[in-house]
C-alpha cells in the first residue's frame, strides 16, 4: 500500500480530519499494547465514531489490501492490538456510548469503546451491573473484553465475558455489517456470535454489543486469609470448590506480590505470610453468614493462620485496591517483569505454583504469583533485568516452561489474556496440527483475504 496524500484524504473524507492520525508521533503512540515486548508501527490510526464509519473503513481497507487491527484501550497483555503487519489501526475510543439500556429485560446495547467500569456505573441506578470485571476495568473497553473473552476475579461465580454477551453487530471483513444474536437468550439460526467472542479481532470488527446486565448483589462479604505456605492456600481454594461453595471471587497473592503492593500502598498486608487469599461472597444478605462460616472452617482446616473480614466498604475497597494494583506495583519497581497467564484444574494449583517458583529459581530469576485461584487461573510474574540479554532470554524460556507445566497438569496456555502475538508458538504445544488446521479453516471462512488482525491467535500452519 502506498500511503499517498490522496489515500489519506479519502480516509479524512470518511472520518473528518481529527479521526485520522498519521504523524510519526501519533503512530508511535500506538505501536504496542500492554505487552510491550512486541511492537509494530501502524501506517495510519483511525478513530471512527459509528458503525457506519467502521464499515466504511473496513471496506476501504479491503479495497486497498490493507490489514486492519482493532484496538480498544490497549490494555491487552498478549499483543493482540499490536499492528505487527502495519496497516490500519482502528481505535474504538470514540465509540463509547450506551446505545440502549433496558432495565426490565436487563440488557444494554453499547459501543465497543465504552469502558467496562463505566457501564456498571451507568447501570447502577437501575440496580444492575455488568458482571465481568477484568483488573483493567477502569480503562479497558467492552469491545476489547469481548474480543479477548476477558475474565476477572468475579468470573468465578458469574462467568466470563462470553456468558454475558447476547448479540453483536459486526463489520465482517468485506465491510458488510451484520447482526449476530440479539437481545433474546437465543437467536434463530447458527450461533456465530459465540465464536466471534474471544476471536481477537481476526474474524471481524465489533461495532455494537448487546450485553446481559445482572442485579447488583444485595450484600457483599470480603475476607482476607493468610497462610504460612502457598500450597496450603491453593489447597484451601480447591477444598472450598469441592465443598460445593462457589464464592464470587477467590484471589491469591504471594509474598513477593504483597511486598511490592505494600511498599506502594501501605495497606497493612501480612508480609510474614507466604500467601494471602481474598475471598469474597456476594448475594442475598440472608445467605452470606452460612457461606462465610463454611469457608472459614475449610480454610482453617487447610492452614489459614487468620481470617479477617473487611468491616466496611472502605476496608473492602482497600483489599481490592491491593489486589487490582498488583500489576502496577510490579511496574513501579522499574524492574522488568513478564506477566503470564495460564490455567490448570483448580485441584492442581499447588503443583502449578510450585513449578513456577522452581522453574524461575533454576534460572536464577525472581518470581511472584497472583492467582484467580478459584478459577485455576495463574498470573505468575517473572522478574528480570531488561538490560541483561541472558536474563531476558531466560525469562522468556521460563515463561514457556511454565506454560508447558500448565499443559502437563491438564490446563492451558491462556485463561483470559488471549494468544495474540505472545503465545503463537505455544499454540502448537496445546493443540495438534489438525486442531489448528480446523481453526484456520474457520478463520478463512470469515476472512479469506487474511486482512483482519493478521499474525495473531493462530500460528502459520502447513496444509495437511
Amino acid at each position, binding site marked *: 500500500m502506498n500511503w499517498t496524500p490522496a489515500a489519506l484524504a479519502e480516509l479524512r473524507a470518511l472520518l473528518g480530519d481529527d479521526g485520522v492520525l498519521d504523524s510519526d508521533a501519533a503512530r508511535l503512540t500506538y505501536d504496542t499494547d500492554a505487552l510491550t515486548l512486541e511492537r509494530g508501527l501502524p501506517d495510519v490510526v483511525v478513530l471512527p465514531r459509528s458503525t457506519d464509519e467502521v464499515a466504511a473503513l473496513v471496506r476501504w481497507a479491503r479495497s486497498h489490501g490493507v490489514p486492519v487491527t482493532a484496538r480498544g484501550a490497549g490494555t491487552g497483555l498478549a499483543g493482540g492490538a499490536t499492528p505487527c503487519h502495519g496497516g490500519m489501526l482502528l481505535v474504538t475510543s470514540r465509540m463509547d456510548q450506551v446505545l440502549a439500556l433496558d432495565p426490565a429485560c436487563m440488557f444494554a446495547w453499547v459501543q465497543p469503546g465504552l469502558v467496562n467500569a463505566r457501564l456498571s456505573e451507568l447501570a447502577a441506578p437501575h440496580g444492575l451491573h455488568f458482571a465481568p470485571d477484568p483488573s483493567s476495568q477502569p480503562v479497558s473497553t467492552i469491545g476489547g473484553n469481548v474480543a479477548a473473552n476477558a475474565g476477572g476475579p468475579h468470573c468465578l461465580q458469574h462467568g466470563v465475558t*462470553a456468558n454475558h454477551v447476547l448479540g453483536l453487530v459486526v463489520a465482517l471483513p468485506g465491510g458488510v455489517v451484520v447482526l449476530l444474536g440479539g437481545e433474546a*437468550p*437465543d*437467536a*434463530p*439460526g447458527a450461533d456465530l456470535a459465540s465464536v466471534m467472542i474471544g476471536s481477537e479481532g481476526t474474524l471481524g470488527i465489533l461495532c455494537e454489543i448487546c450485553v446481559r446486565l445482572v442485579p447488583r448483589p444485595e450484600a457483599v462479604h470480603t475476607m482476607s486469609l493468610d497462610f504460612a505456605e502457598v500450597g496450603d492456600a491453593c489447597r484451601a481454594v480447591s477444598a472450598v470448590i469441592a465443598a460445593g461453595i462457589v464464592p464470587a471471587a477467590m484471589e491469591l497473592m504471594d509474598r513477593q506480590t504483597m511486598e511490592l503492593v505494600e511498599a506502594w500502598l501501605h495497606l497493612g498486608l501480612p508480609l510474614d505470610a507466604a500467601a494471602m487469599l481474598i475471598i469474597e461472597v456476594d448475594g442475598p444478605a440472608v445467605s452470606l453468614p452460612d457461606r462465610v462460616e463454611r469457608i472459614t472452617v475449610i480454610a482453617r482446616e487447610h492452614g489459614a493462620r487468620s481470617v479477617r473480614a473487611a468491616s466496611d466498604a472502605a476496608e473492602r475497597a482497600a483489599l481490592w485496591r491491593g489486589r487490582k494494583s498488583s500489576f502496577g506495583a510490579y511496574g513501579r519497581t522499574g524492574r522488568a517483569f513478564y506477566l503470564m497467564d495460564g490455567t490448570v484444574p483448580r485441584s492442581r494449583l499447588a503443583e502449578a505454583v510450585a513449578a513456577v517458583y522452581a522453574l524461575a529459581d533454576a534460572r536464577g530469576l525472581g518470581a511472584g504469583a497472583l492467582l484467580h485461584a478459584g478459577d485455576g487461573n495463574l498470573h505468575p510474574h517473572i522478574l528480570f533485568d531488561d538490560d541483561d540479554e541472558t536474563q531476558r532470554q531466560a525469562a522468556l524460556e521460563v515463561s514457556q516452561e511454565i506454560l508447558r507445566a500448565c499443559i502437563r497438569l491438564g490446563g*492451558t496456555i491462556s485463561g483470559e489474556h488471549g494468544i495474540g502475538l505472545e503465545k503463537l508458538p505455544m499454540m502448537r504445544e496445546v493443540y495438534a496440527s489438525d486442531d489448528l488446521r480446523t481453526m484456520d479453516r*474457520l478463520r478463512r471462512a470469515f476472512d479469506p483475504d487474511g486482512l483482519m488482525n493478521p499474525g495473531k491467535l493462530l500460528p502459520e500452519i502447513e496444509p495437511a
Partner: protein
Amino acid sequence: MSAGPAALDPARYAIAGVEPLSVRRPAAREEAADVLRSAARDGLAVVPWGGGVSLARGRAPGRYDLALDLTALDRVVEHRPEDMTLTAECGVTLGTLRAALAARGQELPLEGARPDRATLGGLLAANASGPRRLRCGAPRDCILGAHFALADGTLARSGGRVVKNVAGYAIHRLLCGSQGGLAVLLEASLKLAPAPARRVALVFGVGHRALGDPVRWAALPRLEPAVLTTVGQALAGALPVASPTDPFTVIVGFEDDEARVAQQAAVVERLLGEPDARLEDDSAATLWGSLTDLEDRDGARLTFTGAANTPAALAPLIERPEAAAGALFHAAAGRLHVFPGCTRAREIVDSLARAGFALLETVAGDGDPAGVAALQPLIAPQTAVLELRARIHTALDPAGVMAYGTRWEQGGP
C-alpha cells in the same frame, strides 16, 4: 463395531418417517472418523444420532443415507468434583450423567426432554433448554471444550477441560445448536454446578386478565428465579400437580440455600398471594422434569425466543384460546413453545412477533393441521450472514457429507 443387527434396524432411526439406508454404531472415536471418511468417499449423507429425541420430531433432511449412532460412545471420561468439571463422551445419556453427579452433590447445568434417552451430544447440538435456563445457562455457557470429527474424518479439538480458556477459536461453542450440520461432537467437557440445598416450586392458577398484567409480574425477574414458567390449560394436565381450573398455571421456582429460598418464596407470596400448590426438593425436581418433557409432545409445535422475561409477554396469545391453552413459556429463559392445535401457525407467529418473539424451531406434526410447513421467516436472515454460514459450512464439510449442513446454513425454523 458393537451392537447386533436388531439394534441397528434403520426403522429405529426414522426422521419424520424417512429411514436411512444404513446405520453404523462406532464404539470408539477413531471408528466414528472411519465411518465419516468412508461416507465421504461414497458420497453418503450422514446424520449424527444420539437419543433421537430432537431428531425424531424434526424434518427429514433432503438426503438421509447413513445414521451415525453415537450411543456406544458413552464413557464418563473424567469427573473431578473438586474442580467442578466433567468430561464425557457425547453418547452418554443425560440421565446417566445426572445420576453420577448427584452422588457427589453436583449438577449438570443442562436440561432436555427425555433424559433417559437424550444424549450429551444431542443436547448440545440441539441447543436444548429447559425451565431452569436462567440458572443453568445455555449449552454454550457450560461447555469448556470438545473433541469432534469433521465430515472428512479429521479428528479435532477446541477448548479444554479447565473453566477458563481463551486459547484459539471456540469451535465447541459454535457446535452448540449446530443441529449436527457442521461436525460430529464426540466428547465434551462441561462446567458443573453444586446441587442446591433446597428447591421450591410455587404453583399459581392464573386467569387471562392477571396473566396479561405486566405490573403483577414485573418484580419477578429481579428475584432471579430458577424457574418462571407459564403453562396453558391443555398442557397442565400432564404436570404432577392438581389439575388446574384456571386457563394458565404459573410456576415460580427457586433453588439455593435454605434461607435464601425461604426469603424468595416469601417475596413471591407477598406479590402473588398464597400459591395453589407448593412442591419442595425432589417433588420440585420432578416438576422441572415434567415441564421439560412437555416439549416432547405429539403434534405441531412452534418454538420462539424473546427478551421478554415475565408471563405477561403471553398477552398476545389470549385472543387465540387454542394456542393459549397450548403455550409453555419459560420466561426466565426467554423460550416459548406453542402447541397450536388447529390454530393457523402464521397468525400465532405474527401476533407474537409484535411482542418481540422470533421463531426458533418448528415441528409440523401429523397432517400439519396448523400449516407449519408453509411458514416463512418474518425477517429473512441477512444475505451476508447466509453467505458467511455457507462459507463456514463449506470450510468444515466441503463434500457436503453432513445431511443437515444446508439447513444449518439457512438457519431458523
